[in-house]
C-alpha cells in the first residue's frame, strides 16, 4: 500500500517536473540571454560566461521602452479596474436576479468573447480614426474592456453563485440595507473571485499585441509588446537580441508582482462554514 503511494508520488513528481521544465526552459533561456554580452550572445551556453547588466541599462536609457512601460501599466490597470467593477455588478445581477433577457445577455457576452479579434481590427482602426481615438489610451482601453468583460462576468458570476442566498437574507434580518449586505457580507466572500478576475483581465490586457500594434502609431500610447517589436539596437548594425531579452524579462515582472500580491487573497474555501447542507 505504502509502496504504491510512494510510486504514485514519484510518478506524479516526475510528470510535474517535466511540465515545469518544459514551460520554464524558454523563460530561463531568455533570462540567460539578457545577461550576456553581445560577443557571447550566440555561444549557445546556458550559463553566461560573462555577466553583464548592459542590456538592462540600455533599455532603461531609451525613452522608447520607458514610455511603453508607462503606457502598458496605465492602460492595463485602468482597463482592469473598469472591467472588474462593471463585471462585478453585471455578475451579481446575473447570479441573483431573474430578469427578462438574462439568458440572452449571457449568450451575447459569450459570443463577444468568442469573436475572432483579428476580424475586428480593421473596422476598429477606421472607427477610432474617425472618432479621434486612434493612438490614444482610451483607444486601447475601450477594446480591452469589451473583450475582458465577458471573461470577467463569467468568472465573477460563478463566484457569486457560490455565495449562499441565505447570507444576504440573514444580513437583511440583522438590520443591513441592500448596500450594506453587499459590502459587508457578499463582497468579502466574493473577493477571491474579484481578485482572480482582476489577474486574468490584467494579463489579457498586458499581453495583447494585436490591438496594440493596430491601434497605435507613436510612443504616445504604444505598449511594451509592440515597443519590443520595434527594438533595433543602438545602431543599425547592432544586434537587438540582448535588449529584447532584457525587456522581455522586465515586462514579466509586473505580472509576477500582480499575481503574488493578489494570490494571498485567493483563498479557496472561504465560504466554508457559512451554511450546512
Amino acid at each position: 500500500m505504502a509502496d504504491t503511494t510512494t510510486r504514485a508520488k514519484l510518478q506524479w513528481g516526475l510528470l510535474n517536473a517535466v511540465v515545469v521544465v518544459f514551460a520554464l526552459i524558454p523563460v530561463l533561456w531568455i533570462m540567460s540571454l539578457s545577461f550576456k554580452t553581445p560577443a557571447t550572445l550566440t555561444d549557445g551556453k546556458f550559463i553566461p560566461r560573462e555577466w553583464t547588466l548592459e542590456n538592462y541599462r540600455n533599455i532603461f536609457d531609451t525613452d522608447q521602452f520607458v514610455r511603453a512601460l508607462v503606457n502598458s501599466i496605465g492602460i492595463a490597470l485602468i482597463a482592469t479596474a473598469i472591467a472588474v467593477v462593471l463585471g462585478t455588478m453585471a455578475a451579481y445581477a446575473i447570479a441573483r436576479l431573474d430578469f427578462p433577457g438574462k439568458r440572452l445577455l449571457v449568450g451575447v457576452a459569450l459570443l463577444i468573447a468568442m469573436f475572432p479579434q483579428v476580424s475586428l481590427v480593421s473596422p476598429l482602426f477606421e472607427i477610432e480614426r474617425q472618432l479621434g481615438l486612434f493612438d490614444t489610451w482610451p483607444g486601447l482601453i475601450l477594446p480591452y474592456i469589451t473583450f475582458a468583460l465577458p471573461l470577467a462576468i463569467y468568472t465573477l458570476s460563478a463566484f457569486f453563485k457560490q455565495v449562499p442566498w441565505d447570507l444576504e437574507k440573514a444580513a437583511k434580518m440583522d438590520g443591513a440595507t441592500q448596500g450594506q449586505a453587499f459590502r459587508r457580507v457578499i463582497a468579502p466572500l466574493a473577493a477571491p473571485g474579484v481578485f482572480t478576475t482582476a489577474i486574468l483581465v490584467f494579463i489579457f490586457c498586458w499581453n495583447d499585441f494585436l490591438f496594440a500594434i493596430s491601434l497605435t502609431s507613436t510612443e504616445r500610447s504604444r505598449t511594451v509588446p509592440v515597443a519590443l517589436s520595434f527594438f533595433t539596437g543602438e545602431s543599425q548594425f547592432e544586434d537587438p537580441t540582448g535588449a529584447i531579452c532584457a525587456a522581455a524579462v522586465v515586462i514579466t515582472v509586473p505580472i509576477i508582482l500582480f499575481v503574488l500580491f493578489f494570490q494571498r487573497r485567493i483563498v479557496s474555501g472561504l465560504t466554508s462554514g457559512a451554511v450546512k447542507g
Partner: protein
Amino acid sequence: MADIVLDKVSKKFPDGTIAVRDVDLEIADGEFVILVGPSGCGKSTTLNMIAGLEDISSGELRIGGERVNDKAPRDRDIAMVFQSYALYPNMTVRENMAFPLRLAKLDQATIEQKVEEAAKVLELTPLLDRKPANLSGGQRQRVAMGRAIVRKPKAFLMDEPLSNLDAKLRVQMRTVVSRLQKRLGTTTVYVTHDQTEAMTLGDRVVIMRGGAVQQVGPPQELYDHPHNLFVAGFIGSPSMNFLPATLEEGRLRTALGDVPIGDRIRRELSRADAPRELILGIRPEHFEDAELVDEETRRRGIVFEAPVDIVESMGSDKYVYLTVEGERATAAELKELAADAGAADFTGVGSHLVTRLSAESTVTEGENRRVWFNLEKIHLFNPADGRNLTLREGRAAGALAD
C-alpha cells in the same frame, strides 16, 4: 416584544403559484407558535412574509399593532434563524453575533457586553474567537441563535432550525430553544417538519396544507379534537388508523365489525347531503387487548378478532400491527399524507392497523387476537371534504354521543 397579526395574508408568486392563501393568525405577545405541515405547504413563505423577505400579495401584517406590509426587514426589528444557519464565514463567532449590533450603531462597550452576555447564555464563550468553519453543527446552530438573541428583537422567526442536526443533538437543542424562549419571553414563530418539535415546543400549533391553515390550537387539542382528516392524520406518531365505513341500517359497517352510532351522529348522517361512505379514525392507544379490558370498559367499545402481524415491545407498552381485510380508506388528504410520509406505510393489499396495547398483554406474532377499541374515542370523517363529523363545538365526542 410584540404581538403579530396576520389578516387574510396571501402570497402569489410571479409564476402564478399561490403559496399562501388567506391566512388569519393572531400570535400573542410572548407566545411560541409552531407552523407545521408537509413539504411545500407554504410554511417558509409565511415566515418570510412576516420577516419581510417576501412581499405580501394581499392582506395585512401587523406587528405590535402597526401595519408593516411595506417595511423593510431591518425596520421590523425581528430576528431570524435559518435552517442553513447562514453564519458569515469571514467573521468570527464574536463578529457574527456583534454584526446586528454594529449595524444598529451601538457603542463598542455595549456591543462587547451584550455579546458576552448572549455567549454565556448559549455556552459559546470559549468559542468566541473561532470562525464558523471550525465549529460543529450544534455549535453553529447556537451561534445562529446567539446572533438572533443579542439585540433583543420584538420577535424570533425560526425556519427548521434543528433539521440539520443529528437526532441526539436535535433533542438537546430542542430543550435549549424551549428554555431560551421561556427565559426571554419573546414572541416566536417556529417552522418545523418534525412531529415531536411541533408537539413539545409550542404553546400553539398551526397546521398548514396547500397554503391554507387547517387548524390552530394547543398541541393536545389538535391531537384530541382534530377538525379534519388531514389534521388527524398529520398529528400523532404512529399516526391514526383510518378505515372505510359504510352507513347501513343505522349502523356503520367496517372491517372491524358493526359500529353503533349515537343520536347526534345519526341526525347528522340523515341529512340529505350527508355521505353514505365515511372514514373511521382510531388512534393506536385506543385499542386494548380484549383480555385486559374489564366488563365495565368493554361496554364502551367493541371487540374484534384479527391476525397479529408484528409485535414490537417498547417496555412500557406494545405496538401490535394487525392485518384487516378489505379496502383501505381513500381520500385526497390521506394520499397527501402518505406522500409526505414517504408512502411506505400505506402500500400493500389489505390494510394494517397499528395498535398500542398494554405491556401485560400476552399477544404473540402469528396468532389471531381479540382486540377491543374505544368507541368514545373514534372519529368519523367525511371523505369528500375531510370534515370531522364527531366534532361538536370543537370537541370530538366519539360515535356514541347523543
